[in-house]
């Protein structure tokens, strides 16, 4: 019952917006802007000929590859920078400069280096998600409370135990936050990257639909799908935060 109440308000706003959209399109008698119904039929068309799944699959593959390789680089790098003061002092300024550069700005270089195949968008996703994850992980190591490190020191445990049982679990909540940010950015970037000269992906679908006869119904359908998938990805990361060994952070 409470659940129903929680979704009632946002649902009302959503329905009202769609109704508004519908009314305005009908009133203005726009020939090019689609009604919600046309968007739905357009989507069904893509589902029927199977191309929708190909586009979604291509985008997810690029995000997955780019994001996972960024995680594999960022987490060890962040841990290292967090523990070793010299590494932090040396590398942090460089990352701080690279971080605010929009991944979109890297597109020309990506095309120059990797051409217009799959590697370019994967590279862009890597660039987009690696820096926030490094910064977040290193910051996480820095905020480990001294008393825990002291205790580990007191018991005289090995470096392996220190990392496995103190540092990693202590930083894990921060790493997950970094991954959530990283995955969010990655999803933003893949769509932008695919708009440039590729033959698949949701970003490509948007540009292709417009270029091939102003199919704005498919443009909007793609946008909605991008939004829904983004939401699902974020939801998955949120679930990770709920794992028992991570929840200690939110337990109090």
């Amino acid at each position, binding site marked *: 019952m409470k659940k129903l109440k929680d979704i009632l308000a946002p649902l009302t706003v959503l329905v009202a917006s769609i109704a508004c959209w519908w009314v305005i399109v009908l009133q203005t008698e726009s020939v090019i802007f689609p009604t919600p119904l046309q968007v739905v039929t357009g989507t069904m068309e893509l589902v029927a000929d199977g191309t929708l799944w190909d586009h979604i699959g291509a985008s997810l593959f690029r995000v997955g590859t780019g994001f996972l390789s960024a995680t594999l680089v960022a987490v060890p790098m962040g841990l290292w920078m967090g523990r070793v003061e010299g590494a932090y002092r040396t590398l942090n300024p460089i990352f701080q400069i690279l971080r605010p550069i929009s991944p979109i700005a890297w597109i020309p270089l990506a095309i120059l280096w990797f051409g217009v195949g799959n590697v370019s968008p994967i590279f862009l996703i890597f660039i987009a998600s690696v820096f926030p994850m490094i910064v977040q992980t290193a910051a996480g190591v820095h905020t480990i409370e001294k008393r825990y490190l002291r*205790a580990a020191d*007191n*018991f*005289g445990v090995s470096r392996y135990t220190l990392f496995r*049982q103190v540092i990693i*679990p202590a930083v894990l909540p921060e790493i997950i936050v970094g991954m959530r940010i990283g995955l969010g950015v990655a999803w933003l970037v893949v769509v932008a990257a695919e708009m440039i000269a590729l033959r698949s992906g949701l970003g490509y679908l948007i540009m292709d639909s417009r270029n091939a006869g102003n199919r704005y119904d498919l443009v909007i359908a793609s946008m909605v799908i991008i939004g829904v998938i983004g939401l699902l990805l974020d939801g998955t990361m949120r679930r990770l935060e709920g794992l028992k060994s991570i929840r*200690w952070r939110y337990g109090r």
Partner: protein
Amino acid sequence: MDVKDAKISVKDIRKSFASGQASLPVVDGVSLSVADGEFVAIVGPSGCGKSTLIKIIAGFERADSGSISIDGAQRNGPSPKGIVISQHGSVFPWLTVQQNLMFGLNGNGHGDKAALADHYTDMVGLKGFEKSYPHELSGGMLKRVELARALVVKPEILYMDEPFSALDALMNLRMRTELMRILSEERHTVLLITHDVEEALFMADRILVLSPRPATIQATFEVPFAHPRKLSSPAVQQMKEQILGELGVS
């Protein structure tokens, strides 16, 4: 007491902290020795440098001068021979009670480690909570976990820095009694830092009173009363008055 027999021997340690241009002396020539199996309490006004003193003795901070030896050997850094239990505790919130207890246990047999951990969980009265996470436990129970985690590595010395002062008054009293019971089962040398004179009188064999900062030892009291002690007895109350007098609050 002969210094050669001392478990802990502290000779003339001094420590200053830099504050702006000036240096602020915190510990100013403290010497003390603790015999094997002895329970020594150090009481002093807050901010007198007693926490700094125990950190130095436990090996977490360096003194500017002076020396500390444990069993006659120079102390260089922290070691599992002497475990620190502090006010805010350091039970790892991401490990279960059992994993916390097994943390300091090196060696191979996993089964033996778990059995040893469970033995101590039982000893501090937490049987049944082996798989619980710290955030599921109360403050008093956390203190017990910390105590058990220290005891399981069989330390020769316990350094206790205001161990029970974050607990409520009732739990504080309960933990004192609990600690005395455990110490009667297992012999340890204990160095306790506290601002609570009654806590010291209840547990310690000897009480050292520190002066306000910079800390020096101002007076020493032997506590001859047999355990379990009754704090309301006239002799104990009289000693309490004397100690409070040294602290300038009577």
